[in-house]
């Protein structure tokens, strides 16, 4: 356990299950809130809500949408916008995948998982679908919204079913004079946690122990062990901590933006220029021909709104960015694996002359790979544009407009690599003539000249045409609004002859009565290129209703209720992700693996096979989503509250029917059919209490999301035991054996069920015989732990300000998630891999068997111990102190004197503390393997003119 503090306790209580806790959490806030005052946290930036293809007022909107402002996201200094979203928005799961500069792209789920296939969400920036939002800077963002229910996503047709993340960039506002903002930030990043690996002495000593356990003779003599223990001769008895050799303590990150904003009745503009520099953790990389991993990004955003005539207006948006990445020419995962798993006594990091060491078996000395191999670089050029023209048609009927738009997005990427191989030197020990040990270095491989590789060009292109009508008018107590439009969207990837295409006829109709009752219907009639003619188009409708209760007479006397709205929606959505391309056509292909030998010379003849079985009926997943929500503002608008309850029934999930279909057809794999079903449901609550008055202000808020799903139909291969089926469990549920301890001795083994994976010895993991057949095998695997993504996401924040000083704290956590500890870090000595201190301290020996926390050591693959089991599948709940910011706003009268409107300086920290339940010293998200999750300290200045 990491930190035996009060906070830890709080963390684990929160990490405990389910809804009950969510309610507790929120009640807690409410209660605490009585003493609190609030300043800064914006749940809802203004009274308008960004919805699919438009904007509605908060009163009009009945859909489940949570959103956050760009300025809120600014509080986390991370090179990747997605990282800043974690914990801030209800319904959103953000999972770190390693913070390597330029390659940090966390995975995102909306309302957990909905399907056993592909849970990818739709990302939209200013109306255009993009592959990533990582390249955006918070200063160009007005808001990020999560569209969750059917009413929110139905207009996206078969692409929106897994939820939509909608990013809206800032636009100009009318002002007397141009507003200029300057932001500067500089931070230092370091890993949240690095695995602690054994020293040479521990490694060698335990390697011997492992060999002994395997019935093999020791590799290291007592004299060698003594040498490693004393550490007097670093060349004879090296003790290399590769991480110390490679990594620096801290890596800088900096970002700067300047933006201009202004306008009048005729034209408004917003322009931002931004620069981000994020450097990696690798040290000694200042040489000409090597590279730290690093990332530079230049952003431009220019949004223009112009009234061309009295009735004709245009909106123009340009967003562009340049992304330059430079990195050592070795895969990051491999590089980290070598750094972590190369044994400390393998060889000294360099020879006394500073040459790179290495052996035939372990040639990839991490220091050599970093410093001697040259570098690779990637250069991305990305531009997005949108032009939209709107003509009022009041002369036809009042409130009617016609609009047309063209949007496009283009990414061009190319490579420039300068690489070479390098000579490395193997220390060879021999006996001299006098019997004295002597050593020389044997050169292996050669230093070659740098060779340049360019190209690897990649380009993609999306073009959207849009045109339609919108209408909005009030007739007394009736308010009517609507839009209908047609859109064509084509996405082409260079080198792929078959673009992704969509045609969408979509619309929205809203009706309000007495400003109290609101109804809305939305639809999409849309087609995708991926399905058979006649199966391409689908209809996706959703209906919703809202009731502003606080306007009812029976609540007029409840003065503590400032705003109270009930919402409900239901609708049908689709998800096409995971559909194999053009599966409606049957294709055939030459298969080099499916041929035959003929002839006395046994020559190989290639075969030709039927490829994936075509399914002319293949279609997208369909889901019905039901949502109930409430929005409230209470106690003089100090407390705002939003809660949603949802249920989703998804069907038509593609499953491979071959496992359960008739064998007679003769098709053994790839018979995809829309037969799977997953049901999901959950709850989301967000609450903020704020009070802005006097010199001391407080705010307190929290977000809690819970989403749970169950596979209802999965069409699995028949299994021997009923409990082996994934059906009935959530998607991503871990399955494995139930570890019930370690074998005590041979008699314990003899009297236990036979474990069939490999020969077992005392100290090996002992498993429960679930089906009591006397044999432990795959049929004893049961559902263990949770699934590989969290069911609960939460965040809570508090802030206090006194005069011009403020302090913000933000915590983010997940719960109901498991991780599977596997791979090189957890399986020491295989291929001479180093061992974690966790296993050094806790491994089983006959003496320590009562307290052992790791099985006996072995140098073998040991399939028995490394089976997925409750030993390796662990609770991955965690709570991070995601953000701390301490700032000072310079007094207005002071800054005005130098021509500024506002100025503030601040220091902030990210991921400063993490509490988890892993009981292993690795970060709960990356598990110590690969580029780590980072924490940082930053300082910055913000000035407005």
């Amino acid at each position, binding site marked *: 356990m990491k930190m035996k503090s009060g906070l830890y306790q709080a963390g684990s209580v929160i990490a405990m299950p389910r809804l009950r806790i969510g309610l507790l959490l929120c009640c807690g806030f409410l209660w605490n809130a009585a003493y609190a005052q609030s300043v800064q946290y914006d749940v809802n930036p203004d009274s308008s809500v960004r919805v699919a293809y438009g904007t509605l007022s908060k009163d009009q909107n009945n859909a489940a949408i949570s959103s956050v402002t760009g300025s809120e996201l600014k509080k986390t200094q991370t090179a990747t916008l997605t990282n800043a979203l974690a914990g801030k928005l209800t319904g959103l799961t953000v999972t770190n995948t390693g913070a390597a500069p330029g390659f940090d792209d966390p995975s995102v789920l909306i309302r957990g998982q909905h399907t056993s296939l592909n849970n990818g969400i739709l990302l939209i920036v200013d109306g255009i679908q993009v592959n990533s939002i990582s390249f955006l800077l918070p200063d160009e963002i007005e808001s990020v919204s999560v569209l969750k229910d059917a009413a929110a996503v139905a207009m996206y047709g078969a692409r929106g079913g897994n939820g939509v993340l909608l990013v809206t960039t800032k636009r100009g506002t009318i002002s007397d004079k141009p507003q200029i903002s300057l932001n500067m930030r500089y931070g230092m990043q370091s890993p949240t946690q690095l695995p602690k690996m054994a020293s040479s002495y521990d490694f060698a000593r335990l390697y011997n122990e492992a060999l002994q356990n395997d019935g093999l003779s020791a590799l290291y003599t007592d004299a060698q062990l003594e040498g490693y223990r004393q550490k007097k001769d670093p060349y004879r008895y090296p003790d290399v901590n590769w991480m110390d050799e490679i990594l620096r303590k801290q890596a800088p990150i900096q970002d700067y933006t300047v933006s201009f904003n202004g306008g009048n009745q005729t034209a408004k503009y917003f322009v931002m220029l931004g620069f981000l520099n994020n450097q990696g953790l690798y040290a000694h990389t200042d040489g000409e021909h090597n590279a730290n991993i690093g990332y530079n990004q230049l952003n431009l955003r220019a949004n223009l709104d112009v009234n061309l005539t009295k009735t004709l207006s245009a909106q123009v948006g340009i967003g562009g960015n340049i992304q330059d990445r430079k990195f050592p020419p070795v895969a990051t995962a491999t590089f980290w694996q070598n750094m972590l798993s190369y044994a400390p006594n393998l060889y000294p990091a360099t020879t006394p002359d500073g040459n790179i060491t290495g052996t035939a078996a372990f040639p990839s000395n991490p220091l050599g790979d970093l410093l001697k191999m040259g570098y690779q670089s990637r250069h991305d050029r990305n531009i997005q544009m949108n032009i939209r023209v709107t003509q009022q048609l009041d002369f036809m009927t009042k409130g009617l407009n*016609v609009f047309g738009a063209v949007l496009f997005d283009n990414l061009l990427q190319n490579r420039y690599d300068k690489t070479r191989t390098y000579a490395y030197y193997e220390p060879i020990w021999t006996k001299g003539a006098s019997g004295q040990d002597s050593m020389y270095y044997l050169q292996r491989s050669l230093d070659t000249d740098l060779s340049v590789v360019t190209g690897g060009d990649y380009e993609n292109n999306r073009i959207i045409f849009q045109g339609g009508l919108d209408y909005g008018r009030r007739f007394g107590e009736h308010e009517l609004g609507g839009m209908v439009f047609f859109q*064509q969207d084509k996405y082409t990837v260079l080198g792929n002859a078959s673009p992704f295409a969509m045609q969408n006829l979509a619309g929205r109709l809203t009706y309000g009565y007495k400003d109290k009752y609101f109804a809305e219907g939305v639809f999409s009639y849309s087609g995708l*290129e991926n399905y058979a003619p006649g199966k391409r188009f689908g209809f996706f409708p959703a209906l919703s209703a809202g009731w502003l209760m606080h306007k009812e007479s029976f609540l007029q006397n409840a003065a503590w209720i400032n705003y109270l709205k009930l919402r409900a929606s239901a609708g049908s959505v689709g998800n096409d992700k995971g559909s194999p391309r053009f599966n409606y056509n049957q294709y055939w292909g030459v298969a080099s693996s*499916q041929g035959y030998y*003929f002839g006395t010379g046994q020559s190989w003849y290639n075969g030709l096979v039927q490829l994936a079985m075509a399914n002319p009926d293949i279609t997208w997943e369909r889901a019905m989503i039901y949502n109930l929500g409430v929005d409230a503002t209470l106690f003089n608008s100090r407390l705002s509250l939003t809660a949603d309850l949802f249920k989703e029934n998804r069907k038509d999930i593609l499953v491979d029917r071959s496992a359960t279909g008739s064998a007679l057809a003769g098709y*053994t794999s790839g018979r995809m059919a829309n037969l799977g079903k997953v049901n999901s449901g959950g709850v989301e609550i967000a609450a903020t209490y704020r009070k802005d008055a006097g010199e001391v202000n407080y705010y307190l808020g929290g977000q809690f999301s819970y989403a749970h799903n169950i596979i209802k139909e999965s069409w699995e291969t028949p299994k021997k035991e009923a409990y082996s089926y994934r059906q009935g469990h959530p998607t991503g549920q871990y399955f494995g054996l139930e570890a019930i301890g370690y074998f005590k001795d041979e008699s314990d083994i003899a009297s236990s069920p*036979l474990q069939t994976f*490999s020969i077992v010895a005392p100290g090996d993991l002992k498993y429960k015989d679930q089906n009591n057949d006397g044999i432990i095998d795959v049929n004893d695997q049961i559902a263990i732990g949770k699934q590989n993504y969290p069911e609960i996401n939460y965040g809570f924040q508090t802030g206090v300000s006194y005069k011009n000083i403020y302090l913000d704290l933000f915590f983010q956590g997940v719960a109901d998630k498991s991780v599977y500890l596997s791979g090189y870090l957890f399986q020491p000595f295989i291929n001479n891999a180093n061992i974690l201190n966790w296993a050094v301290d806790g491994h089983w020996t006959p003496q320590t068997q009562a307290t052992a926390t790791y099985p006996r050591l072995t140098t073998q693959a040991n399939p028995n111990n490394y089976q997925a089991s409750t030993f390796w599948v662990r609770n991955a709940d965690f709570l991070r102190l995601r953000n701390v910011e301490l700032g000072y706003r310079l007094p207005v009268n002071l800054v005005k004197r130098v021509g500024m409107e506002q100025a503030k300086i601040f220091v902030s920290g990210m991921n400063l503390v993490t509490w988890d339940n892993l009981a292993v010293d690795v970060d709960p998200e990356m598990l110590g393997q690969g580029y780590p999750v980072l924490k940082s300290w930053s300082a910055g200045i913000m000035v407005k003119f």
Partner: protein
Amino acid sequence: MKQAIFNKLIVWSVACLLLGSCNKYLEKPESSDIKLEDVFASKDRTEQFLWSVYRTCSIFEFPYYWASGENGYYHYGATYTIVAAADDEADAYSNITGAEAFNKGNWSSSDIYWYEFRSEFCYKGIRNANIFIENIDKSPFSDAEKASMKAEAIFLRALMHFDLMQRLGGIAIVDKVLKVSGAEDIPEVRIPRSTYAETVNFIVNSCDEAAKSLPSSYESKYRGRIVKGAALALKARVLLYAASPLFNTSQSYVPVGDPKLRELIGYPSYDPNRWKLAADASKAVLDWAANESGWCELYKGKSNAVDRYEEIFINPSLNEIILDAGLMGTSTNNYFVRFMTPGTVVYTGSDPVNIGVTLNFTKFYQKADGTDQTWDEKEGVDYPYAQYRQKLKELDPRFQASVFYSGEEWARGTGTVYHFYEQHGKLLDAYNGVGFLRKFVKGVSNASNPPPKWITFRLAEFYLNYAEALNEMNGDGGQITWALNEVRRRVGMPDYTYTSQDDMRMKIRRERGVELAFEEHRYFDVRRWMIAGNEGVMKGGMYGLRLKGGTNPTYRLEKFEDRVWNDKMYLYPFRVSEINLGYIQQNPGW
């Protein structure tokens, strides 16, 4: 003006969508995709498709393993070992094998596919064959070439039906490409089982049809393609099986009330003429080899009988072989050495499977002089090691070539290897039986030796088939002994003379066991002869000779296993997943 433009835009857009005037927006552009019509428009592709039919319709790999599991294409083997380890021939020491399930008797319709046999792979091959048969006429080959190639596919389709039939009895005959809609198996896919008689007839008719158009030989680069002899051979084997006691009887192996089911598992009554059909068909193979093939004969090379017999299984192009498949050459497959070779010799990893040859089976081998060896060892008594060596050394050359017992060399000049069980204690020397399997794997010296080719038909079988069928129809004793002695003479074993039908039956069965040992014959022979349930065959005590090292090495008789048999096991069950679809009737007892 502007309004007009926008109106146009809207009208155009909506019209576009509704009238489909620009529906090609969603069409897939031209590409280099291959569709069915493209396959059979080209000679090269047509041939390539035929090679895939070969691949999926043959026992392509040495059948010890079905490798890629769910996604594999290997048909057989008792999961990590050969099926001989699941009858009285051998035993796999490691408990990871499928043979273990058979020997313990704990296999069922829900897990049979883990242990030996995956019918879906047969039907995959059958599907490919049917596609080929239905489309070959569209190809640009000459009529004669088309006929010959179609005959190859017809044969391969029949071979897969036989593979199903020998395990399951009457099966669903699939003689056309079944349309599979992704969402539902349309009714035509759910073909019920044919009767046993219909299945036999289908295979026999296929063989007859194929034999008409198949050549007797190919140019050397195509050695290994289906020759006419293969079609005759399959017909002979099918008819021999069909005439055998398991199927050719009025008495089913377990009581069956349902007359429909009765016809699925065999003929409802005995007909002696079936033996005649079998005898004629076997003779046809021998006649084809002698008179028509121009090349096919019993292998009689090498001066020494041990080497001669061994050569058949490690030489990729002997004239005795009518059909084989796979590669003997240079690929790498570490699993093969783990599963097939002795753990002491080639394989260095953990948990070798270690196939041991049982004492039960060793007793079938006569001494080289044609008399029986004395096997009078008692349990619990230690005998001198030298006696173990002497007794085994005296046996039939085919034993010497097939079994690697203690004190022998693995390959000539590589040094004597001992297999003392108790001296070392560790698993490496642990095996059940009298020694390790050597047949097939003699040539394997390191982990990069691939499996040998797998022989589906070799000529020796048909002498034995002929002798058996002739004896059962009480035919000419001279012919019976001629056929038997042809096989015996080749390895220098003394001739038999005719005695009586019953005595000859025992001799024929014994000879068949010895000659075709470990070649996936006995596993099915003990079933069709209905002797699997006899003590010491697939049921009851299995014995070995366990060696103890030291200054005075000894051996002792050891019962290493009591095997479990139930008569329902004479036929396999259909997979429960197929049964659950409702169109297949399960075999009795499952």
